[in-house]
């Protein structure tokens, strides 16, 4: 019931918004987007009190001939991601208040449609349904980037679309392959996740390796992992700020979440054989992207590269496949989602107030607006994982997890601690500190909608840095279950 | 079946008619002639159907021929209508000029 509502409500909301052409829809969109968040909170209460409640499940036949079910369920892990999604969407809508987009009704409609698809991806328990939601999520973001994007958007959006679609097709092949093998283990061809797990585990080592790579590539492109990342910086820079927030804050987590739920338990042998290679790629990505971030001038592009570094660490932790790594990955997914929304909003505010995001042209903003500087600093500290911010919990667990896999990989992954500080502090110093470099640049008070987003982000950063227990407790049983499947 | 004329002869005639039709479709550019050639090919097939129907003493083949003739008539009506529309727009019925869908 609750699970079904989480999909249906954003869908209806988006359809309503599509019909409201020419009307001011900001506030309506915001109210609409708060409803799924309320439902997610209700689901959280339900899950903590009565984890077996039937309201958290929905399972009905969809396409009989292929044995496809519309099966969605909320366990601790998917609820974490659903909470993140439903929490971020209102923030993203609020952050758009200062950008007066044309045709805003379809803009917000697309955002809510996207929310529906994302929530669906996180809840799906049926391989076919998962794939449908996975691809469905691509459509709204494609239009958001294409219609409201910046310079050269047609080319860049096209590349992004084709690149990710290309990756997804590999996953489709992998899933169909598994579907055909469910016959031997389940006695009937089935898309149910547990049947896919069983079918995957029954494969030989070589077959598992092949499936591992087929599915991994789709996720690796979505996250993205080195060297499949080149669509990402351009797309992040060109997309409208809200599009970037959706992409990096939530959509990226489809990939990492997919790794945990749709890859590791399916091919444990493939993981055992190829996990090392994948971790190596992830770790290379961390160092590589961090280095590139150091020399970026455009602040938005800098965050884009830092995002590659962060997600590399998350992927490495997941692929290490131990309790600390996976748990840390979930924590870091939440932290990263919240933090990048804050950082991208800051990039947007800078652009709106000063007309540039070039960190070499900005400077001295701290003396013009001290409160903004403080909030910026808090978000930045969350991003460089200072203890008692939300970023630290995840990062510590992740490095811990990777260390158990390989101390050397962990040492290189840990370089993010240093390099992250280098590029973040360098950009902060250039943008905020020192003397004003260009007399024409002024920076007045920040609009109240922006201010509220930043305040909420800061509060979350500190609250879950000091007391992450509700989140870890929520994830713990689900993580245990996944790990027990892997280690069976 | 007319005595003395074997089934082979019908088949040869039919094949000749069909080939004339096919070559006409391939070689000519005038739409009307192409159209006529298509009819020729249809009739070649009709001839074959009728011959075998008689040979096997089975009326099914002749029933088919009626269907084909009915369809061909409808086709002629629609086809000529299209052609006359094309002619009105392009002032020609040369197929080489009808390449607007190319790009």
């Amino acid at each position, binding site marked *: 019931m609750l699970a079904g509502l989480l999909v249906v409500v954003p869908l209806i909301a988006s359809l309503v918004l599509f019909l409201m052409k020419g009307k001011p829809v900001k506030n309506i969109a915001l109210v609409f987007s708060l409803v799924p968040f309320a439902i997610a909170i209700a689901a959280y209460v339900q899950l903590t009190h009565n984890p077996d409640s039937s309201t958290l499940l929905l399972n009905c036949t969809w396409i009989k001939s292929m044995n496809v079910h519309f099966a969605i369920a909320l366990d601790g892990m998917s609820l974490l991601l659903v909470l993140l999604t439903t929490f971020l969407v209102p923030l993203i809508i609020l952050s758009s208040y200062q950008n007066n987009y044309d045709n805003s009704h379809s803009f917000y409609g697309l955002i809510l449609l996207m929310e529906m698809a994302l929530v669906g991806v996180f809840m799906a328990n049926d391989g076919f349904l998962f794939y449908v939601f996975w691809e469905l999520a691509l459509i709204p973001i494609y239009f958001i980037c294409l219609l409201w994007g910046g310079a050269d958007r047609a080319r860049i959006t096209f*590349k992004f679309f*084709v*690149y990710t679609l290309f990756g997804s097709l590999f996953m489709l092949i992998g899933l169909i392959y598994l579907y055909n093998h469910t016959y031997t283990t389940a006695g009937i061809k089935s898309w149910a996740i547990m049947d896919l797990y069983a079918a995957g585990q029954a494969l030989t080592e070589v077959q598992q390796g092949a499936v591992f790579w087929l599915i991994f590539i789709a996720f690796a492109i979505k996250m993205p992992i080195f060297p499949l*990342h*080149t669509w990402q910086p351009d797309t992040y820079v060109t997309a409208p700020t809200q599009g970037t927030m959706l992409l990096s804050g939530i959509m990226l987590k489809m990939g990492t979440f997919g790794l945990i739920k749709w890859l590791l338990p399916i091919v444990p042998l493939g993981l055992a054989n190829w996990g090392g290679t994948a971790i190596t790629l992830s770790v290379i990505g961390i160092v*590589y992207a961090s*280095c*590139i971030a*150091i*020399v*970026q001038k455009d602040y938005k592009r800098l965050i884009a590269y830092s995002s590659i570094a962060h997600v590399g660490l998350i992927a490495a932790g997941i692929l290490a496949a*131990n*309790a*600390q790594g996976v*748990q*840390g990955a979930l924590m870091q997914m939440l932290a990263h989602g919240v933090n990048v929304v804050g950082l991208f909003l800051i990039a947007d505010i800078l652009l709106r107030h000063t007309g540039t995001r070039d960190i070499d042209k900005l400077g*001295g903003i701290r*003396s013009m607006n001290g409160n903004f500087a403080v909030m910026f600093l808090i978000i930045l*500290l969350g991003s460089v994982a*200072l*203890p*008692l911010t939300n970023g630290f*919990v995840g990062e*510590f*667990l992740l*490095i*811990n997890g990777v*260390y*158990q896999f390989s*101390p050397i990989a*962990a*040492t290189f992954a*840990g370089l993010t*601690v*240093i390099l992250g*500080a280098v590029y973040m*502090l*360098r950009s902060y*110093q250039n943008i*905020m*500190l*020192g003397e004003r470099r260009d007399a024409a640049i002024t920076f007045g008070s920040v609009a109240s909608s922006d201010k509220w987003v930043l305040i909420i982000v800061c509060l979350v950063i500190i609250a879950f840095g000091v*007391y*992450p*227990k509700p989140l*870890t*407790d929520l994830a*713990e049983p689900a*993580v245990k279950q996944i790990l027990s499947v892997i280690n069976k | 079946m007319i005595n003395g004329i074997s089934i082979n002869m019908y088949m040869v005639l039919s094949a000749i008619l069909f080939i004339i039709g*096919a070559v006409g479709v*391939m*070689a000519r*550019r005038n739409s009307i002639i*192409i159209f006529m050639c298509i009819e020729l090919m249809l009739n070649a097939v009709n001839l074959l159907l009728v011959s075998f129907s008689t040979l096997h003493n089975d009326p099914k083949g002749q029933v088919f021929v009626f269907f084909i003739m009915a369809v061909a008539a409808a086709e002629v009506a629609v086809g000529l209508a299209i052609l006359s529309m094309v002619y009105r727009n392009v002032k020609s019925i040369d*197929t*080489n000029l*009808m*390449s607007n*869908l*190319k790009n």
Partner: protein
Amino acid sequence: MVKLVGLVPLFPLIGFLINGFFGKKLSKSISGTIASVAVLASFVVALLLFFEVQHLPGHKAEVSLFSWISAGTLNIPFAFLIDPLSSWFLLIITGIGFLIHVYSIGYMHTDDGFQRFFTYLNLFVFFMLLLVLGNNYLIMFVGWEGVGLCSYLLIGFWFKNTEYNNAAKKAFIINRIGDLGFLLGIILIFISYGSITYSGVFEKAGIVNESTITTIALLLFIGAMGKSAQIPLYTWLPDAMAGPTPVSALIHAATMVTAGIYMIVRSNVFYSISEVASEVVAIVGVATALFAATIGLLQNDIKKILAYSTVSQLGLMFLGLGVGAFSSSVFHVTTHAFFKALLFLGAGSVIHAMGGEQDIRKMGGLKGKIKITFLTMFIGTIAISGIPPFSGFFSKDEILAHVYEHSPVLWFFGMLTSMLTAFYMFRMLYVTFWGSFRGTKEQAHHVHESPSSMTIPLIVLAALSVIGGTLGLPEFWGTPNWMHHHLDAVIYRKNTSLLTHETEWLLMGLAVASAVAVIFFAHQLFVKNGVLPQTNENKLKPWQKLVANKYYVDEFYTAIIQKPIDLISGAFHKFFDVQLIDGIVNGVGTSVKGLGAVVRLVQNGNIGMYVISMVLGIILIFLTLFIL
């Protein structure tokens, strides 16, 4: 009573929140008072706890607040440990912290960022208290990074100055290098012992093989190198003098930089087991001590001299740790906190009097003009130089005695360091306070004694510098070494001195004699002959130039680390990312497009063509069917 331990960090946190949120609405005096009272309140609680600890069973107690991080078998409580070591550090931090807060009210009274300054200062005290109070390594790490953040904020306190900002950034980044080592060390401890709480690790330290313990100890020591400014990660500390002087006194002399020593004393069981790690600590310590002391010889900025002196003294403490003299090092931390805070605050008072001038070549003859500052600084200088019965003498002598027992070679270098220390400290003192006034006329007119909020802390610290030595009187005098007994419960391997009393007397006599001789030499040089530091850098001899430029270590680091990273990053971006990887991606796209361009030629729109190809196709199908 022990339950109240949470109050100790809570008070500065409240002070931080009040000043942080409402600072702008508060007047300077209220803001400063709130911050100081917060630390004073912590000091009072810490004092009560300190006495309480003596009566506790096992001399320790743990107070758990909540479960912080848990994942799988990893379970990290947010819990505090109160034992002789942490309770002693609490006293140092809150006690000296309070004095410096009071001092800052006077020192910063004209600054626009007054409230902000106290906000950061309270935050610093909060994190520093967390660092020493945690009952596990991760809470220590929280404080560890937290003080790093505050250090960053306070070094770059005057944020409009790019050079200060660079210094702040450098401090943070270099500290982070150490932090990574520390973090990996913590993780290795977790993996080896399945726990990171002190009680869960130390008691079964021996179950792990020695090479792992060595790795753990070395990783932890990397953390200590960063925070406590040891070779090769020391370069941030002299630059950190960009911050306001009270910050230099509190953070970069008395408390934060001794965190590394706290950490190693806390983990002394690892270092007792691993000979290799201990040896590394001792060698790095003595090298740093000697190296920094030589740089101190030719510095002219009063704060830089003190900064290098701090680096050098920290090196001496690590030397002590390396030879297993853990309690002696804590003793030296304590006395060093007294006299170095005093010297920094005194230097601040001098700078205050000179209207912001920090170059000792432009001072001179100040002893009659700012008497209290002069007298207190004089006491501090004697204390650091190791003249009995001042505090520095006892702590330094105790360390050196242990070093001699371990290795006479190390002892020789330690001795050399302390002679150099005496020399450059007296050089600073003589050049600043003796001779004739060399500043501008305006400055001469302006010179005045600081307000009482600044001088009272000086006097208190001077008194502590004088009597601090009684905390650890030498055992061979037949007097009880209080510090040694106090820390008994936390030191796992005791080493009692094997030296004969005669040797100990001899070492002590040598130390005093050499210090006196050096001071006499300095007196001859700077007072009798009135030699002044060279102002023209071109006239320096080559070796002097080398030393005055700090052996060009900063330039060296820039050349071998910073520049290559920038270069590689640029190459990664411009060549590798944009051209190679993205080139391949775009290449795939372009080739598909190209293939399409070729294939689409077939679709030329000629109906005849289509029909012919169709017929040919049919014929082909028939042919294949018949042939096959």
